[in-house]
């Protein structure tokens, strides 16, 4: 088992002919993701060539792509000006999960897009996220496949490379993962920590969870309360940004301490108060997970 994506995931890539889209589509196909279609308006009828000689049909619209191929998941590699509309198009076309990789989508566009997706019961992951990988099953997004391996740990994080760091170290000592999810660094994201924690709790193969937060907002605090009230599985936490000054945006659009809320201290305290083992340094995550799984 795994969460969000697995062997039944049938993926359509929106923006498949773009620079990022085509590169990562090949990476996903190499990993074994079932990429069933691509969408690029105006290129309908062409085919996308995969790394091993296989090819994937390209459609002008998501509607055709889903109707023709039965895709149930989409990933978005289109520029910020068009990305929110691409999310709406995917939700309208009837996929279950939309993974929005694009960084830089205006936040008011996303407010509308999230409302639209909620109305239709479609899960959005991201935007501005690295995607999701269920080792040995499927990869959707840009996470580097070579750092993961199958195993009992669920990983959920707001950041990309920091997650890779943690996952890489786990894999290095032989601890594999059920699923690694990057929920994204934007202020308005479709799938949050709580959604992922609930899914990991329900996933029989997941034995422990690593949750990597950062400054900005209070998602970590709510997640901590959720862990206390709903999780039977051990959770190890880390929070980045203890040295970040208030009021300054630290790369991610969502990583900003506004007023008194959203500091790393607050989040770490919430973790500790709710029974989450907190790693002081990224490297400490490995030891805490070893303890948790022991």
């Amino acid at each position: 088992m795994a969460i969000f994506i697995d062997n039944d995931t049938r993926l359509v890539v929106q923006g498949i002919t773009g620079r990022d889209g085509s590169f990562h589509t090949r990476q996903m196909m190499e990993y074994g993701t079932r990429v069933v279609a691509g969408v690029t308006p105006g290129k309908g009828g062409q085919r996308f060539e995969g790394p091993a000689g296989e090819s994937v049909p390209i459609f002008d619209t998501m509607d055709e792509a889903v109707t023709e191929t039965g895709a149930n998941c989409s990933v978005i590699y289109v520029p910020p000006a068009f990305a929110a509309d691409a999310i709406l198009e995917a939700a309208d076309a009837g996929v279950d999960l939309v993974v929005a990789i694009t960084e830089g989508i205006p936040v008011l566009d996303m407010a509308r897009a999230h409302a639209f997706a909620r109305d239709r019961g479609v899960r959005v992951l991201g935007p501005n996220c690295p995607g999701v990988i269920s080792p040995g099953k499927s990869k959707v997004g840009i996470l580097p496949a070579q750092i993961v391996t199958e195993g009992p740990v669920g990983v959920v994080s707001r950041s990309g490379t920091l997650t890779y760091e943690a996952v890489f170290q786990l894999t290095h000592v032989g601890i594999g993962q059920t699923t690694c999810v990057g929920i994204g660094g934007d202020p308005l994201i479709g799938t949050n920590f709580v959604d992922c924690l609930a899914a990991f709790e329900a996933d029989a193969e997941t034995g422990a969870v690593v949750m990597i937060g950062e400054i900005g907002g209070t998602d970590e605090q709510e997640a901590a309360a959720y862990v206390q009230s709903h999780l039977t599985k051990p959770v190890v936490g880390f929070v980045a940004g203890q040295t970040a000054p208030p009021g300054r945006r630290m790369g991610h659009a969502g990583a900003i301490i506004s007023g008194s809320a959203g500091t790393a201290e607050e989040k770490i305290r919430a973790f500790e108060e709710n029974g989450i083992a907190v790693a002081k340094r990224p490297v400490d995550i490995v030891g805490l997970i070893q303890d948790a799984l022991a």
Partner: protein
Amino acid sequence: MNIHEYQAKERFRAAGIPVPPGEVARTPDEAESIARGFGGTVVVKAQVHSGGRGKAGGVKLAKTPEEAREHAARILGMQIKGLTVERVLVTPAEDITSEAYVGVLVDRKSQAPTFMVSAEGGVDIEEVAATHPEAIRRLAVDPRYGLLPHQALWLANSLYDDPAVMKRAAKAIGQLYRAFVDSGASMAEINPLITTADGEVKAIDAKMSIDDNELFRRPEVAAMRDTSAEPPSETKAREASLSYVKLDGSVGCCVNGAGLAMATMDLVKFYGGEPANFLDIGGSSNPEKVVAALEIITSDPNVKVILFNIFGGITRCDDVANGIVEATRRIDIKVPIVIRLTGTNEEQALEILERAGFSAFTSMDEVVEKAVALSKA
């Protein structure tokens, strides 16, 4: 992107909000002549991207043009929270009957623009929220419908008893939402919204932050950026598409990824050092970007050591190593550079770096300890 009070007021005025007149002065002479033009008592207000201007002495009442000149002379050039005041806004003093707070920001939890209004204006809304939250009325706006007229009235209803004032305030609240959306803002605030003796409402202070992601489609808003209000290094970083925030420490950090960059800074602190900056170079191994990053970091005289922390995922470590080597060939760096690379093609990368004479590590903790030590050398 933050904009100045006088710029926010322009946007507010364009949306129809009643904003008293005001003009910007860059010199005491200009301030005096503006004050003379208005006649009567004026307020001289520092234009900086920072709260707490009043407490810092950046807002002064002037009864005469001469007094306006004196205040402007004192305020212009003043440092407020590290920012130099380059402009003052001169505006007629208002006769204030009451002060309210009206603000809207994109709220993460409701995933919607959310209004907060309070009859206790003119003070820090955070403080009101902390000490007596019941004094604040909140409303999440469904972005699909916008702020509905009855909602604006419901907000105004919590501020005023007089029906005429209530309706004027509701109108201004609707206009504030308009300005917020039309500017691509992430926050817009009137604090205080005052009433006058004759029942008018007026916005006598204005604050607005723009969502950087909106700027590409709003050139008229993007043109409001005041690069004099930020360190030149941050201007340069933005132009090079780097995320950079200047801090006060001595360990210059250059990392790929925002989360890893913050974690690196935290680790510097953990090992007893002080980070000089946040810098995310993104996933690129492009030497141009590495050159820009190095130029920015080395322009900070406090920097005693440069620390690279690169996680090779999709990006290959050997590519990044080549980029670093080439970049350091092109610019002359006076401080030591320590580098940690791990992930894809790590071994080749370490070899490239060591050949070029760099200290290269695979452990994040080791490299940070080394950098901290060098920063104190």
